[in-house]
């Protein structure tokens, strides 16, 4: 073995990760801006108007990526939290706490844009559709996680308790989704069919670009939040003092 092995675990320590995150954040912001401008210009300028929904459908370029992100971020959050619980990595628990507010924000954004979309299309701000209801419950799960972590003063205990809650939530999400779905179909015939058979390719590209922009934004903002959490939690260590110039 001539080459030196690369130590991934090196970056599991907040001290090593802090400067790395600091160097990465501007790049992710830049990518978020580029993808965002590209996606929105495809969405608003290039994509054709929808035959049935006119121009109003264009909110889809924010709505769908936000829904995707809200669901995906919960998985990522639970993954980091579980890793922190299993191996006691301080950094992964910090990442989980840093992701939660962004996930909750996307869930809220998805509900809000959904309401704005629903009003002209279905004539109601809110319907008890299976997807809407499960997205609402997802928002509640995020808020529960944040509230639990905020209520416990000891950061280690907060991390572990939050991790258990996040993992329980991940197991429950499919159960909740399917029960809500069956509840909906049992109560009323499914009157809302969102799936349009053929989506114009430009619309799809615009949506994917916007989804990428949301990804980059989520990474950038979570890394920023993680850096703040690192400084706060490790405020008594030497490297933080050096970093802050005391």
């Amino acid at each position: 073995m001539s080459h030196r092995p690369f130590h991934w675990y090196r970056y599991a320590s907040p001290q090593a990760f802090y400067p790395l995150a600091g160097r990465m954040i501007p790049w992710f912001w830049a990518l978020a801006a580029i993808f965002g401008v590209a996606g929105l210009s495809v969405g608003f300028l290039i994509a054709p108007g929808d035959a049935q929904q006119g121009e109003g459908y264009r909110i889809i370029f924010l709505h769908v990526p936000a829904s995707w992100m809200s669901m995906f971020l919960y998985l990522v959050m639970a993954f980091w939290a579980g890793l922190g619980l299993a191996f006691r990595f301080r950094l992964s628990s910090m990442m989980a706490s840093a992701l939660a507010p962004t996930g909750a924000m996307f869930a809220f954004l998805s509900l809000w844009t959904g309401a704005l979309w629903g009003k002209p299309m279905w004539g109601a701000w809110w319907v008890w559709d299976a997807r809407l209801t499960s997205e609402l419950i997802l928002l509640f799960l995020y808020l529960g996680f944040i509230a639990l972590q905020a209520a416990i003063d000891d950061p280690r205990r907060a991390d572990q308790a939050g991790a258990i809650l996040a993992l329980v939530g991940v197991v429950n999400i499919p159960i909740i989704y399917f029960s809500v779905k069956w509840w909906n179909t049992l109560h009323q015939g499914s009157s809302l069919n969102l799936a349009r058979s053929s989506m114009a390719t430009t619309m799809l590209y615009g949506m994917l670009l916007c989804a990428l922009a949301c990804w980059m934004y989520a990474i950038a903002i979570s890394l920023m939040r993680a850096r703040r959490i690192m400084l706060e939690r490790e405020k008594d260590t030497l490297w933080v003092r050096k970093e802050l110039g005391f």
Partner: protein
Amino acid sequence: MILAVIARDLRLALRRRADLAAVLFFFVIVVSLFPLGVGPEPERLREIAPGVLWVAALLATLLSLPRLFADDFRDGTLEQLALAPLPLGLTVFAKVLAHWLVCGVPLAVLSPLLGLQFGLSGEALVVLSGALFIGTPALSGIGAIGAALTLGVRGGGVLVSLLILPLYTPVLIFGAGAVDAAVNGIGVEAHLSLLAALTLAGVFFAPWPAAAALRIALE
């Protein structure tokens, strides 16, 4: 050992009958408030009865959850139980069963009386009581996780509802769905089967995360 834990919890509950009575009275009062709120038309009451009774049962269970571990935590019994040779998960399982016997069963027994006030038919009353009987163990099981997570945390009572109520939605859906089906004369077996599945899964899996949460609280 499991039986010993159950017997101990039951004895403690029987010596504090007022706590149990308070939960049941809460259930009765919440249910009785609804006709005052929505009006006395029998048609409408019959329509909302399944949901109202189930939501009230959910809230009553939630109200009794802090007592599941808090007293034992305060006087140090919980630490002794954690040190006992019985795995902590099984201890939690026993406590969940005891909680169900003290809270879920009385709710199920009491519910037909309240259902009668809402003008439910005899068949629907049987389904209501049976569904509560089948479904409340899941409420106790999932609730144990929340009770363990919020042990010794300030504002625990409000927090536990925030954590647990979203996880209760499947039980509510199928429980109220069964009664709804009975009211409308549709088959109730599908709902009851799903409810039983939720209960089995909840009672057998939930004690383990709850035990992990207790260990965190005891550290």
